[in-house]
Each structure stands twice: as C-alpha cells, then as structure tokens.
C-alpha cells in the first residue's frame, strides 16, 4: 500500500517538473485559498502579537488561541503551554512557523501598545487605523475606517475595553461571541470547504472576543462577560446598536459592504436598530465538553419589526482516537440546523468528516456555520470528508464535499454540487518545497461581476503548483503556476507568478510578477502583495500582467514603514494604460 502511494506521489511530482522552475515560501496564511476570505481579526491579531510581544509567553499564547485558523489540537497545545507544558507546541509545525515568523527579530523590551495607520489607494483612498493599549488591569483597543469616496472622515469606528474583576471577564464596547460551532453566533466569515476544513469546523468557539474586524454590521455593542459558576462557565452578552441591514419576508440580514457613498447607502446607514441578549453555559465533562446557548434579538426599522429566539445544544467528545462534535439549533421561526462531525487521528494519519443540514431561511443571531453556498434561502445539506497523511517527506491532503440545496427553485441554480481537492506537498530538503493542488468544483456560482450575473453549471478544475525555494531566512523565492478550465471543452485560463523576498538589516523588499491568460469566466486568483495586517487577493478577470512590490523600512525597534506599489496591465499585449495602485502603512508601538 505504502509502495503504491509512494509511486503515485512520484508520478505526480514528475508531472510537476513539467511546470518548470524553482522558488520560495512565505507566511502560514498564504497556504489558504485566495478565492476565500480570511477574517481581518486574525490579521490584526497577528499584527498585535508581533508588536506587543517578543516571544511565546502565556499572554501571547492567549492571543494566539483566538486565531480562527488554528486547529483544536493547536489551541490545546497553546492552552497546555500556558500551564507549563512546552512539548506540544514544539511538536506542532504550524505553531513553530508562526512563532518564528512573528518573533524572529532581535528581542526588544515589552511594549504596552501598538498602533497602525494605513492608506490604501484603489478607486479612491481607504484609510484604516487600529490600535491596542495594554494598561495591565485592562486593555483598550479601537479601529477606525474611512472607505474610498466616503465623505465622513471616520465613517466606521469600533472600540472595546476588556478587563477582569473578581473572576469575571468583562468586555465593554464592540465584541463578538463565538459560541458552539457557529449555528447561533460566530465570526463574520464562515468556514468554507477547503484543505483543513475538518480542523476548523471541529474547533469550538472560545466565547467573547473583542471585535477587531472592519465588518461594520457584525459586532455586538454593549457588555459581554464570562463568569465561573459552581457547575461550568456562563458567558453572556447584551447589545444594542444601529446597523446596516435588511428586514424582508420575516428575515434579517446584515449588510456586508460597509460602504456609505451613494445616496441610498447613506440613507440606509444604521437603518435597523437591534437589541440582543445571549447566553452560553458550558462545562467540561469526563470525555469532552457540553454547552447550551440561548439567545434572542429584536430588529426594528421604519416599516417593520422582527424578533427571533434561538437555542442550541452542542458538545465535543473524545472516544478512543476519535474526536467528535455536534451542534443542534432551533429558532422561533421554526427552523432548525445541525452540524456534526469527527476526526480520527492515528500517528500521522488524519481522517475527518463534517455533516450539516441547515433549513431554508434558517437564521439565528450571528450564525455563520460551515456551509458551501452563501445563499441561505434555499438551505443546504452536505457531507465533507478529509484525509491527511504523511509519507516520509511528503504530505498528502484530500478532501471532498458533496452538498445539495434543500429547496429547489426554477432557474440556473443547480440543486447539487461537489468540491474535491487534492494537495501534495513534498519537502526535498530545508530549502526546496513543491506543493501541488488540484481542486474540482461543480456548483452554481453565486457572485456578480461588474456587468452581469455569473452562473456556471460546469465542473471547474483548478490546478495549482507552487515551488518554493528558501535560500535563507532573509531570502526566498516562489513560482506558482495555475491552470483553470471548465470541463465543457473551452480553453483553459493560465497564470504564472514569480515572487522574491529579500531582507536586509533594516530594509526589506518583496517583488511579484504575475502573467495571466484568461478564458472567459475562468478567473484566476493569486494572493496579492500584502502589507502586515491585510490579506488581499488579486483576481484576474482578463488576460494581463501585474507587477507588485512592497518595501518596508524598520525605522527603529518600535516602528516600521511599509509601502506597496503595483501596476496592472489589463491587456495581454501591454497596449493599454496601466493601472497604478499603492498603499502606505505606519506601524508604531510604545
């Protein structure tokens, strides 16, 4: 069996050689699919971790556990680290990469606060400010944002104060509640089908967290607290705020855009008033954790009002090598949803599955459970399976997600869909790594471009090969080749990206080049050149070329300046005026 698998891997690697070239690797989060969003709170947390801490300490480990992409094992390792056990952190490759990336520089004295100012030029200029100050007894943080063309200088702002008093943890201001597995209250970005999804879906929410994201209509605003009880822990929150959203057909939806430029956007700013009360009780058991959530909300606008009560029961259980989880929720709209799954771990072999069934029109308070389709009206049920194993220096990861809508409607939307991915990563030595991903998707797409609605019923295959060459910690290169095609006989879209990173004592530079040949609707996505605290992807909707670079200057132990410049030619023959973009970011700490 092992011989067969080894031969298969060699065959794939031989195929990769045809893709030519060499090159190198960057941050852990670049392993995620650029077609999917990453929570901004994760990026800002990483920024805080870098500037507020020098190394892995109990305090920095607490912040690390809030990262959404860590697995249950990784958060457990961090929890154990806080209690003095170091071994599991050392045995976790991703945690090691994270800590090396965050704190590789010369240690400086501990700082109390960090502040970020970013100007990002797109169609206009977006401004963003983020700061956190740790006063010991309490932590204060805030985020401000002005999107391009918005007239108000501080169109969106968010503040929080976090403190501890007599075993109670209080968060005042803007906060989010991550409860259970996301059927009632979760972060603004859901878990999607991808490599590692079983890890993310298995992970239980960690209760109240200060809201650090730029999503303007997601945070609760008020008071949240956590208190130990004789039996278990109670986490509760009350919130009142105005937000952008819609109340239609007895259904509430928050707006995701956050833009207030057009007349209607300005008029609809804060058009819905919301009152929320939510509580979660949970306790550890002999084999895991059980919890119960109860929440209610009332929404009002000029024309309508709506109330919804939601309740859920969830649990995590360890049975032999299996880790199981489930959550079952029911709302006063007479809708229910269930998500459950498990993961088997045996040495370097992992198998996981996730089942979900979400009623049409199901909504709770801030639910954002794992699902493939964003469309909530039609419901969804599906099963995702994932296998991961290591053979010598080769890591293999395969997932498959089958899903269907519960309600069928006339039109272009398909009722069934599937998504399958295969990822093979081989580390030849400490410098050279080759990673190859094949992803096949068949589902009605749900996005819009600037001119028309996009819908595709053909399976789309995406093949991506990444070759990473890490010459040293200060010098690395990467080449990524991507091919995407509809299985309807049309030509493929092709893209190639070269990247190089060079660091000196105080200076650093990243250079990107991407050339893409696009066929019709088969858009290609690449991670863009990014500044600390952002993770944008660059989408190629037409053939063209892209040159990007970021430069950073480490002005002192406590401050950095980052600059990003990019040029895009949206024409294969360069016979077009290029589009220039840029960004400036100042990071300081005190």
């Amino acid at each position, binding site marked *: 069996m092992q011989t067969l698998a080894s031969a298969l891997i060699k065959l794939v690697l031989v195929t990769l050689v045809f893709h030519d070239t060499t090159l190198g690797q960057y941050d852990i989060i670049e392993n995620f699919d650029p077609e999917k969003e990453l929570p901004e709170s994760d990026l800002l947390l990483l920024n805080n971790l870098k500037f507020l801490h020098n190394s892995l300490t109990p305090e920095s480990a607490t912040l690390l556990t809030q990262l959404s992409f860590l697995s249950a094992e990784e958060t457990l390792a961090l929890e154990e680290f806080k209690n003095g056990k170091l071994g599991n952190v050392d045995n976790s490759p991703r945690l090691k990469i994270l800590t090396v990336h965050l704190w590789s520089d010369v240690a400086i004295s501990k700082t109390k606060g960090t*502040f970020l100012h970013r100007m990002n030029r797109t169609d206009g200029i977006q401004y963003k400010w983020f700061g956190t100050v740790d006063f010991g007894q309490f932590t204060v943080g805030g985020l401000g944002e002005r999107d391009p063309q918005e007239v108000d200088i501080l169109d969106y702002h968010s503040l929080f104060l976090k403190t501890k008093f007599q075993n109670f943890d209080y968060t005042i201001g803007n906060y989010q509640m991550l409860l259970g597995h996301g059927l009632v209250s979760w972060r603004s970005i859901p878990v999607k089908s991808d490599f590692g999804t079983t890890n993310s879906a298995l992970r239980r929410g960690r209760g109240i967290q200060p809201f650090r994201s730029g999503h303007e209509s997601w945070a609760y605003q008020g008071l949240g607290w956590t208190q130990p009880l004789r039996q278990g822990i109670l986490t509760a929150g009350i919130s009142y705020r105005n937000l952008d959203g819609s109340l239609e057909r007895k259904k509430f939806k928050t707006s995701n855009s956050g833009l207030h430029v057009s007349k209607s956007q300005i008029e609809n700013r804060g058009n819905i008033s919301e009152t929320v009360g939510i509580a979660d009780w949970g306790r550890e058991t002999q084999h895991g954790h059980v919890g119960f959530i109860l929440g209610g909300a009332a929404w009002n606008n000029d024309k309508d009002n709506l109330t919804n009560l939601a309740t859920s029961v969830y649990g995590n259980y360890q049975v032999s090598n299996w880790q199981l989880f489930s959550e079952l929720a029911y709302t006063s709209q007479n809708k229910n949803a269930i998500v459950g799954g498990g993961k088997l771990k045996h040495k370097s072999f992992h198998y996981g599955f996730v089942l979900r069934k979400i009623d049409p029109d199901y909504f709770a308070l801030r639910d954002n459970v794992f699902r493939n389709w964003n469309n909530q009206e039609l419901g969804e049920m599906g099963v995702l399976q994932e296998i991961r194993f290591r053979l010598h220096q080769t890591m293999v990861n395969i997932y498959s997600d089958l899903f269907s809508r519960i309600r069928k409607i006339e039109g272009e939307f398909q009722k069934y869909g599937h998504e399958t991915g295969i990822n093979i990563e081989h580390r030849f030595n400490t410098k050279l790594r080759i990673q190859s991903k094949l992803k096949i998707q068949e589902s009605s797409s749900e996005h819009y471009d600037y001119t028309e609605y996009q819908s595709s019923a053909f399976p789309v295959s995406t093949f991506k090969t990444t070759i990473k060459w890490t010459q040293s910690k200060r010098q690395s290169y990467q080449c990524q080749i991507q091919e995407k095609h509809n299985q309807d006989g049309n030509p493929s879209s092709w893209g190639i990206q070269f990247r190089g990173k060079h660091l000196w004592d105080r200076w650093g530079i990243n250079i990107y080049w991407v050339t893409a040949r696009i066929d019709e609707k088969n858009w290609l996505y690449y991670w863009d050149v990014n500044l600390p605290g952002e993770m944008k992807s660059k989408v190629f909707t037409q053939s063209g070329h892209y040159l990007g670079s970021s430069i950073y200057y480490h002005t*002192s132990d406590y*401050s950095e300046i980052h600059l990003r410049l990019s040029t895009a030619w949206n024409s294969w023959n360069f016979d077009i005026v290029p589009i220039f973009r840029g960004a400036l970011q*100042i990071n300081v700490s005190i």
Partner: protein
Amino acid sequence: MVFFCPNSLESAFESEKISPLQNAAGAFPFSLYANSLGAISDPTIISNNQSLFSAGSHHRKFGLKSLTQSCFVIGGTFHQYGVGLGLSRFGNPNYSETQVSILGGKNYKELVQIGISLNMYQLSITNYGQAVAIGSRVTIRYAMGSNVESIISLLNVNRPVLGQSREKLPQVIATGFLAKPHDQIRGQVSLVQDTEFPISVRLGLIYQPFNQIAIAVGKVHQPNIFTTGGYIHWKNFRIEIGYLSHANLGLSTYQTGISYTRIP
C-alpha cells in the same frame, strides 16, 4: 472684485492656517519647529517643555485685500502639558471666518506626542448674520528613530456643521514624514486628504546654512503649487516668509510672519 468658478468654490474654513515657513516648505501641514505658528495646525509641537512663545502672520492671498488672513498663537507649558491659544481670521468686512483654538499637548516617553485642539468656528456675513460651530483636531507625532518623525492628524472628527443649512465643515486626514538626514537639512513628505477633494501630495526641503538663516523650497501636487521662502532668526525673534506660485492659475502669493520666544 473677485470672481470664483462655482465648481471649485471651497466651503467655509477651507483655508489652511499654517506658518509662512510651512508654506515655503511645500505647505507642510504640521509644525516644523517648536515655538512657531505651526502650533495652530499641529498642537503636538507644544507638548515639549518650552518657554512662553507667541507667533503671528499676515497674508493677503494673491495680493487681494478681500482675502486677507491673519493668524496668531500664544503657548507655553503648564505642569507637564503644553497649552496654547490660537486665533485666526480670514476674509473681509462683509464676509469673515474667525477661528479660536484651545490647544493642548502631551509628550509620552519622548516617543509619542499627542496634540488636541478644540476649535470654535464663527462665520459672519454682513446683513445675513453669523453662525458658530465647534470642531476638533487630533494629532499624533511619533519619533520613528533619531532622524524620522511620522505625524498623523484628523481634523473635525466630530462632524461639525455650520448654520441653518448645516454646511459641513472640512474634514481632513493628513499624514506626514519629517526627516532630518543632516543637521542642516530637513525634508518633508505629506499627504493631505480633505474628504471632499482629491488627495494632495506635498514635498519640501529646508536648508539651514547658518543658525540664523534657512531657506526652503517645495512642491504641492493638487493643486499645482511651487513654494519657496525661508526665515531669519535674530535674538528672540524669527521672521518668516513664504512664497507660493500657483502654476495652474498663473498667480502667486506670499505670506509673512514673525514669532517671539521668551528665553528663560
């Protein structure tokens, strides 16, 4: 008589209150030196321990009496805080904009200087009456090493509006870097964005061949302006001049100012 093109007519209180030297060095929106008129636009500069000072300037835009602007500031240290009072007036007997600013600054760890100003805006038009609004400015100056400072400022975060028509007062985001690569040379790069207008990019250089004299040159992009000027330092006085050549208008204007610092 002055004619304005309606499309580019600025609203009330759009005229910047900066010193002649700031204008000469590319209309830098932040203070270049302590004890200067720059404290009105950037109160961080009064956060350092310093003696009592005062400064004033007079300016007829494009030589037109109708567009006269006068500014005055007085400041010093009170306990560990810098405090000051600023006053500016723009216009003519028929139309006048008056701004009174209460300034405060605090230095933290010799690393961060925070400046706050509370501004009272008063607009007065003969035979129409007057209107008052309260605005604010928050400025943060950070020492990014021994040779570079970064400064960020937000004007009128509290969204003040003026009069019955609820005219929105300018909201401005300014970002700047002030570098001192050599004892005799200072350079600035700044980005100024009024939320109603395109971003303005500004560059400037100040060369100080002797302690008593400095000359400055600069360039403003949006609007297109070339700037020059300098100062002469004599005893407790500093006399500044700024000269601005508006390339698109084909017009130029100058501003003069004087500051006084009490040597303890």
